């Protein structure tokens, strides 16, 4: 019966999605000539050999030519660079000295300038003869090898068995189509549906295989709505019709929750992880359409043999080979290595880490005031109220609908008086209306992307006929940034921030709902070459504009939908137009884990699902999971019923309030984690295996996740569930966040998952800072005292960190911050300064409550030094406020130790 029901619901679901997702409007691999060709190539087809190996300008360089170059094919140029910390960069391009028809596009502005400082200038290379190879030093642990015949590049360990880590072209699938000059009668056009791509330079695609050794799974390459551990797309056991993972930024209407189909963003970065606990990574800096196959074991007769290797096939329509090998070995090393190439995530303002309330659309100023006051009426904190496209005068961004929003400044000031901000939407499509100042200026200045004939590209989006700012040009980006000044953006105030939507770019009447590939950007760059980075540049320009607006004193907040490597430096992203279904709630976790792993830590999914109306239970569960999303925003389509948290009856209001309060209580912890991500690139939301690399049971778990190293959260993704199975990794215990109950690690526990909360645990050995007082917004929490929750491990030890700055400016970059490390050991809690000595920020904030979980004895008091005062130890509530059911437990509590958060002190348990 149950299976029948399941089948039925599956059927319903299938028919529903097939109605919505217009699959036929998007190209499959078979309809994409370069993908089809690359996929049908057989292993060993590549006949290129590396010759003329030499060192030039600190790089190892070589020529790649066909072994029997009967066709007189131009050689390619290979260059290999090495950066500190285990990073190898491999570039392959056409030889510019041979005057190709055009310079192929190399994506600028993604690799951070600081990477150059890490470059290890190569001075020599070693030669091996069996097989003939050239070897260079990478780090104490690793070296890079270029095998000559056939050419192959890989990174291997230097010691022991010289184990391979990552390799390229080990299966001879490398192919590089050189640019052509269109001659008479050449028919290079590609047609898809009603669209024709003129392809003036013919085929220019690149493809190759990449292998990850000692790997159980590969992860990464967002953005897809699919499992975290990437399933094979080709080979034994995989359906013939399976598509590769597509990386092509698209505005997909009602996307499916289980599909390799490309969504709004593209990050061609893959991470492997295996049973030895080791990880490695591979990144291809390329902005053209990409398709990636994960090949099932046995895809190639030579593969297999229990080597636990994962082979992948990478295909791109254009650009060059500009790839990075990351040696690891720990998962956190790989993300750090990647971050040192593309940058770490920007430090958000504190307000941005709170709760955001959005809807398409809050209709007018009264609506805004009404929603705002309802939050207060129900004592639900929130930090930001959002306005979607309807707030503008006819979708002309930087304007206001004067009937609905006659006094935007006053409106923002009213919110600001409660410490709340506003976000308005600004999209890259500009209404083609001669009386619209922005269109006029952009036209006159020639700032629009051009169509293949050189005229301003004219596409269709929200405002109707629209043109698109050419964000590839630094000059245009600078101009765009200037639009955000208070003078230019009439009606904006310092508490207004920005949302960049539709920046894939979405073009309603374009091929696959985007811009034609033969559209032209500055410098004759074809859109096909830069497509996946278009939204990134737009995000960058907007974010830089906000920095300019605040004269460099105010951290920008810009939410983007399109993503590309480097996006993390410019702001937050969300997973686009999801749907109010349980499966969409479930898939949000693998999606966010993937984004975090590939650098984009400040990410979230729309709470409740954008399309459709969530039943109250789903909405509540979504808030409970969403409270742990790094970016926490409720949003809804304008066809849906209102769904602000107080609209579903007293009980549901209470449940959602509690979920949001949980987030606010943990804001000090989140903010500290954002700082960690800002410094190291390690994401806020982490897969379990990032914290427990050896624990194989965690490798494909994408229903539970870690927040930092201290919290494990398991979402509830099914209707009517009151129990959950939770796997708790590691050898140490876990403490239930609601009641302090202890669970042993390394085991799957069946436990209650009552409607009040989803399972969440603090890991033994960690200290988590909280702020337990409830306020209207994060702004009012500034002076509130802290609570430390110490979860002791089996050796009665624990540690944790707390980072504090002013929450808004860039002063932290000049050392204006507090960074404490709390260590509990031998019955003594110590607060140590881990900020550099020049760091200076003071705070009057006290730590007024310290909770000890797992303490073996029942002490009565503690001695606080250097104050030389005694503090009482008594039983107190684990969580105050919130729902009674989750706060009833009493735990060991140090009462009012009276220590300041910015000072050194010790507290000795007596």
């Amino acid at each position: 019966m149950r299976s029948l029901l399941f089948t039925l619901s599956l059927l319903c679901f299938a028919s529903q999605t097939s109605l919505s997702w217009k699959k036929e409007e998007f190209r499959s691999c078979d309809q994409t000539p370069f993908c089809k060709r690359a996929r049908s190539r057989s292993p060993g087809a590549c006949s290129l050999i590396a010759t003329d190996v030499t060192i030039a300008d600190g790089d190892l360089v070589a020529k790649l030519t066909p072994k029997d170059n009967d066709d007189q094919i131009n050689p390619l140029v290979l260059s290999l660079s090495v950066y500190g910390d285990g990073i190898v960069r491999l570039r392959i391009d056409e030889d510019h000295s041979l005057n190709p028809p055009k310079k192929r596009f190399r994506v600028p502005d993604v690799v951070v300038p600081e990477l150059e400082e890490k470059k290890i200038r190569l001075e020599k290379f070693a030669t091996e003869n069996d097989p003939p190879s050239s070897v260079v030093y990478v780090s104490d642990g690793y070296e890079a090898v270029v095998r000559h015949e056939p050419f192959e590049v890989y990174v291997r360990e230097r010691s022991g068995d010289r184990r391979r880590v990552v390799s390229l072209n080990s299966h001879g699938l490398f192919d590089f189509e050189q640019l052509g000059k269109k001659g008479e009668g050449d028919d290079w056009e590609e047609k898809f549906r009603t669209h024709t791509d003129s392809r003036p330079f013919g085929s220019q695609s690149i493809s190759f295989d990449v292998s990850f050794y000692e790997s159980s799974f590969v992860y990464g390459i967002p953005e897809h709505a699919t499992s975290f551990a990437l399933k094979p797309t080709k080979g034994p056991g995989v359906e013939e019709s399976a598509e590769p993972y597509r990386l092509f930024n698209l505005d997909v209407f009602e996307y499916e929750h289980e599909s390799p189909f490309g969504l709004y963003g593209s990050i061609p970065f893959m991470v492997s992880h295996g049973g030895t606990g080791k990880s490695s990574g591979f990144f291809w800096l390329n902005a053209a359409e990409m398709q990636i196959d994960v090949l099932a074991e046995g895809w190639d007769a030579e593969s297999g043999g229990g080597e636990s290797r994962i082979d992948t096939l990478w295909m791109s329509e254009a650009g060059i080979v500009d790839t990075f090998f990351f040696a690891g070995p720990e998962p956190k090393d790989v993300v750090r290595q990647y971050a040192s190439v593309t940058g770490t995530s920007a430090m958000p303002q504190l307000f941005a880490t709170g709760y955001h309330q959005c809807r398409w659309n809050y209709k007018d100023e009264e609506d805004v005031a009404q929603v705002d006051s309802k939050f207060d009426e129900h004592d639900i904190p929130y930090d930001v109220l959002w306005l979607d496209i309807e707030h503008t005068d006819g979708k002309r961004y930087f304007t206001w609908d004067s009937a609905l929003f006659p006094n935007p400044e006053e409106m923002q000031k009213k919110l600001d008086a409660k410490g709340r901000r506003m976000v308005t939407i600004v999209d890259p499509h500009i209404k083609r209306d001669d009386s619209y100042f922005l269109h006029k200026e952009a036209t006159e200045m020639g700032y629009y992307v051009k169509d293949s004939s050189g005229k301003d590209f004219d596409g269709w989006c929200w405002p109707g006929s629209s043109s698109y700012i050419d964000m590839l040009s630094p000059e245009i980006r600078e101009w765009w940034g200037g639009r955000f000044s208070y003078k230019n953006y009439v009606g904006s105030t310092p508490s207004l921030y920005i949302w960049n939507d539709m920046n894939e770019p979405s073009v309603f009447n374009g091929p696959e709902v985007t811009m034609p590939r033969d559209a032209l950007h500055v410098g004759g760059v074809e859109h096909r070459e830069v497509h996946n980075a278009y939204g990134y540049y737009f995000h960058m320009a907007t974010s830089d504009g906000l920095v300019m607006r605040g004269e460099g004193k105010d951290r920008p907040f810009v939410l983007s939908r399109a993503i590309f490597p480097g996006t993390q430096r410019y702001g937050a992203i969300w997973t686009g137009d999801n749907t109010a279904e349980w499966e969409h709630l479930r898939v949000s976790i693998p999606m966010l884990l993937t984004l975090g792993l590939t650098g984009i830590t400040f990410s979230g999914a729309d709470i409740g699902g954008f399309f459709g109306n969530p039943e109250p239970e789903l909405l509540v569960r979504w808030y409970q999971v969403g409270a742990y999303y790094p970016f926490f925003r409720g949003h809804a389509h304008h066809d849906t019923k209102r769904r602000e948290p107080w609209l579903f009856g007293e009980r549901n209001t209470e449940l959602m309030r509690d979920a949001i309060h949980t987030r606010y209580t943990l804001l000090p912890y989140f903010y500290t984690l954002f700082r960690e991500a800002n410094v190291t690139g390690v994401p806020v939301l982490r897969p379990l295996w990032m914290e427990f690399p050896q624990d194989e049971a965690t490798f494909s778990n994408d229903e539970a996740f870690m927040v930092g190293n201290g919290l494990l959260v398991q979402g509830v993704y099914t209707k009517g569930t009151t129990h959950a199975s939770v796997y708790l990794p590691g050898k140490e215990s876990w403490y239930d966040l609601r009641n302090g109950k202890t669970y042993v690690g390394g085991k799957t526990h069946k436990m209650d998952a009552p409607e009040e909360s989803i399972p969440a645990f603090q890991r033994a050995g960690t200290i988590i800072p909280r702020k337990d007082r409830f306020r209207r917004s994060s702004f009012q929490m500034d002076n509130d005292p802290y609570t430390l929750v110490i979860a002791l491990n089996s050796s009665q030890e624990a540690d944790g960190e707390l980072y504090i700055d002013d929450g808004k400016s860039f002063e932290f970059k000049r050392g204006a911050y507090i960074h404490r490390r709390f260590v509990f050991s031998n019955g003594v809690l110590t607060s140590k300064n881990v900020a550099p000595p020049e760091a200076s920020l003071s705070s009057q904030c006290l730590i007024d409550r310290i909770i000890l979980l797992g303490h073996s004895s029942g002490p009565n008091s503690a001695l606080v030094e250097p104050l030389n005062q005694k503090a009482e130890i008594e039983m107190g509530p684990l969580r105050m406020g919130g729902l009674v059911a989750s706060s009833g437990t009493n735990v060991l509590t140090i009462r009012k130790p009276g220590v300041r958060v910015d000072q050194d002190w010790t507290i000795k348990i007596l």
Partner: protein
Amino acid sequence: MRVLLSFLLLLFLVLASSAIRSSSSPVTDPFLGISPQDEKYYKSSSEIKCKDGSKRFTRAQLNDDFCDCADGTDEPGTSACPNGKFHCRNAGHSPLVLFSSRVNDGICDCCDGSDEYDGKVACSNTCWEAGKAARENLKKKIQTYNQGVVIRRKEIEQAKVGLDKDEAELKKLKIEQKILKGLVQQLKDRKEQIEKIEEKERLEKEKEEKERKEAEEAAQPGKGDGEEKTDGNEKVEGSTDGGEMPGVSQDDEILDENEHHDETGRYKDLDTDEESAAEAEPTSVLEEGTHNNPADQHVVETKEESPSSEDLIITAGSQHDGSTKKEESDEVKKVEEDIVSEKKEALSKEELGRLVASRWTGENSDKPSEADDSPKADEHENLEHTPTSPQEVEEDDGFVSDGDEETGDDGKYSDREPEDDTYEEEYRHDSTSSYKSDAEDDLDLSETTSSPTWLEKIQKTVKNILQAVNLFQTTPVDKSEADRVRKEYDESSSKLKKIQSRVSSLEKKLKQDFGPEKEFYSFHGRCFESKQGKYTYKVCAYKEATQEEGYSKTQLGGWEKFENSYQFMTYTNGDKCWNGPDRSLKIKLRCGLKNELMDVDEPSRCEYAAVLSTPARCLEDKLKELQEKLEKLMNQDQPQKHDEL
């Protein structure tokens, strides 16, 4: 006694608190934030219990800015306990209970400023002014209620009269209906009799003709062709001028069809829109010659014309046209669907853009007629770019998403309690109006029907006719008498139909829910209108609610019922919304001196909300409640005045 005691206690506490306020800073008050009713709880012993019973705390722990009780008992005056509540006394105004999250958060929440005492902000005491304003408001509200209650009483009385009248009329009509039914049946029988005889006559005549012709043919066989022709002519002539019989039978058919037609029309009227049925009623009155109104005259003329065969043909033709059109439009629709579902090969770039956009916006890019999709003014500018063909222009309309944005100056959401509403906006909406729907209140059939002469006259006429016609049992039928029967039959049966319709509409009316005291009786047949921006909203009680813009009209819903003990009126199953629910409207009712529709809004897509002020909601109980509240407030003033002295 107890009331008096607590009142005295209250007085004392208020006095005490104002004394504290004037003498010392509240920070030092260990009982800060405790409501007067609760002071005893805190003062009774030195060890205090958390109200949830979880633990005990000492007097020193009370308001020591550290939360001991999960329920917040120990921190009524600080923000330390998230579940805590802070009580501000607000002397001069009403006391207020705040969430503890508001204490020392830098925002002045209490008018006496007692929630902000950490010195970070200085809150001035605004209680006196605020209290005064609140009292004034309350007084005004009471005034409205006072007057409203009177109006309401009057309406209830009138409702009783009206209902009695309706019932009386219904009773009378039913009797008349019965009598008339009998007469009509008699006339019908007679008419059929006549027609039978006429038919017989006709057949005989034909037979004679035939025989005569055959005889003539036999006499002159050589001129067959010409003869035939003449014969044909004669035949034509016969059927046009002298051919009573076929004419009559044809007429009969026409009548039948007409009747049928009428019935459908009436059925529809009853179901959806009683207007036309109602309109028809006065006509019957007119036919009796009691009124003479040019508009009605026109109706009469039309009526008289309608049974002609020419008209029938035209009607049939146009009906045919109509159906063809429908088929055509169906076809168009299908083609459009094909276009949509297939490859959109035929779409222009622009159409494609609109089509894709429409997925998100929910607007139908192909069918612009959806009223809610009407564009904002600025969207019309798209027309500049959008060339030319009317279809495209319409598409443009259809594409735009802003139709649902009311520019209404205030959105009222249904989760607001009606009681909390202030009523003082009565004079605000000059664009509002209320009027009797032309539906049926004006349908004063009673006047005519009540005149005894009317029925008697008919009875007499019928009697006369029947007797007269009775005399002519044998052929040939006297033509003028036959016509008289037919005419009288037509008139009587049409009159009967009208009475039947009136009976059924009265019955329907009397079944409606007019409220516990019939206070909503006067709503029947009434419409309330409110103009907001480009839209005119029209709410007809017990009928339907619409949104009109120019000539386009969208049904927001049909009458459903009153809800929440007559605090709301609901309309449901309105026009379908693309990708959304069927439209619906929920109207909040509140006390006001006039029936006035206002604040129409669309808080969720296609779910409308509005407010209707009406004396029907000026309840006496509520008035009493308000008066008590005011009394309480005025009493509270006393100490404040003392204080000021």
